[in-house]
């Protein structure tokens, strides 16, 4: 299982990946909004760790830059933006009624993880890149879990965190396959994330002011009836 070239780094990367996936499952399953945010911060830290490990292995300064950008934007800036735009009361709420109860969501999450691994195995077999075997399937699995979180949760902030978890998954897969994206593109993609969070945070605030709650999953007035 371990890549022949980098046994220890590969093992640590695999461990990081497994914990990364656990945080993605956690964001899907926790009831408390604040816990979702803390899990997201943990997930971003794990992404940074993976980027650093790959940077050491592949000797690529770009990956260290990606790690630095991730730490700044995702662990520091985004929680700060969210705290400022969405009031503290939202963080004390819990989702009491869910679209799908937690054990069923967890089972569907397990099925999604299996599907992601199955989808990525022909690709990983075809193109042999170190670490892609670990990062690609886990990144795609985190993407599927993030999509399912956006669909399955009712509260606004966990939906947003599902979206951000999806992006984390993309970058987790990305650091293995594109160790040297042009700097401009990296910076642009990095700047994009806080802007998304800012927009969504302000929108959440507006929703709370006008509608009175942030359970956006319950807003369903626009229909064909």
């Amino acid at each position, binding site marked *: *299982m*371990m890549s022949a070239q980098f*046994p*220890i780094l590969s*093992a*640590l990367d*695999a*461990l990081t*990946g*497994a*914990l990364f*996936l*656990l945080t993605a*499952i956690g964001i899907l*399953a926790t009831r408390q909004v604040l816990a979702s945010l803390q899990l997201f911060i943990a997930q971003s830290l794990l992404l940074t760790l993976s980027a650093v490990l790959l940077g050491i292995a592949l000797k690529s300064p770009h990956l260290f830059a990606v790690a630095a950008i991730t730490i700044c934007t995702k662990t520091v800036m985004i929680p700060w933006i969210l705290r400022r735009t969405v009031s503290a009361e939202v963080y004390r709420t819990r989702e009491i009624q869910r679209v799908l109860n*937690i*054990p069923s969501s*967890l*089972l569907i*999450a*397990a099925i999604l*993880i*299996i599907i992601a*691994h199955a989808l990525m*195995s022909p690709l990983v077999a075809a193109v042999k890149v170190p670490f892609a*075997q*670990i990062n690609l*399937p*886990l990144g795609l699995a985190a993407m599927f879990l993030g999509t399912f979180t956006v669909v399955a949760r009712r509260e606004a902030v966990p939906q947003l965190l599902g979206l951000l978890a999806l992006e984390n998954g993309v970058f987790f897969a990305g650091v293995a396959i594109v160790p040297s994206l042009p700097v401009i593109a990296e910076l642009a993609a990095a700047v994009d994330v806080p802007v998304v969070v800012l927009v969504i945070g302000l929108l959440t605030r507006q929703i709370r002011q006008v509608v009175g709650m942030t359970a956006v999953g319950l807003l369903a007035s626009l229909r064909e009836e």
Partner: protein
Amino acid sequence: MALGIFHNLLQLVFIISVAPLVEGVTSRLKENLQSKRGPSIFQPYRDLWKLLRKDEIVSDRSSWIFRATPYVCFAAPIFVALLIPVLTAYPLFFAFMGDMLGGGFILALGGFFATLAAVDTANPYGPMGASRTRMVGFLAEPVFIVVFLTVSFVAGSTIPYIVQQRWVTPLSNFFEPSHVLLLIAFLMLILAEDGRIPVDSPSGLFELAMIDRSKSLEYSGRGAALMRWAGAMKFLVLICIFVNVLVTPWGLAKGTSSLDVLLAAPLVLLKILGFVLVLVYIESSLAKLRLFRITEFLGAALVISIVAMITNLSAI
């Protein structure tokens, strides 16, 4: 061969005698963590001694199951103790009598009799606790099976001794993601099976909220002593499986002389102490879950074990 049997019996004596000590240490450490003084660590021995000398009162409406259960429950962990590595790193005489699934079945047999005995009494809390235990057990079974499946698949065998050799022979295998995830899943399982927080409160006295303890409410005298001892032994057996098979074989005797085996005992006790510290920390920081939230807890354990299995399978 005789030496092998002797060491196996030594293992047995170790389990029987150390089990109340582990329970005593756990409750004392928990109290210490809450800045209280706590009972002496030898208190469970005194409790057992007291109970053994007391009269036993048995309802004449109950059947043979009620009378037989304390002995069955006491015997079950003993048989399992013959199969798992407790003091030695190499298989002993009875080691191939049953594998991990067999050990799981034997423990389940003990639990089955305890549940039946609880229903046998006319105490209203007995059947309630029994049905709740069945619910928790029903949810915990898939986790057990997936954990054992993954472990056996990786090691190529279901005998605990062989599994233990393979798991941590190169040290990097310790950090394998499937290993770490299995540890987490099995820890959640121990919490569920043994009635620890967050599933059940071991020191609670409120019968309406009991899951595990209400099964032994009706016993008195010798029966109560055996049930308590059996509970402590089951706990110790699960800890031994966790610590010696899944985590690391460090501290187990490699040599075949009796001295090596005896010297392994304090080292194993040290490992168990480490686990108890972790357990006490978890118990003190979480709150007991509402009954129907236990499904979520065990569902999470199931998903973690499935993820462990997938990350293992996909990498091969």
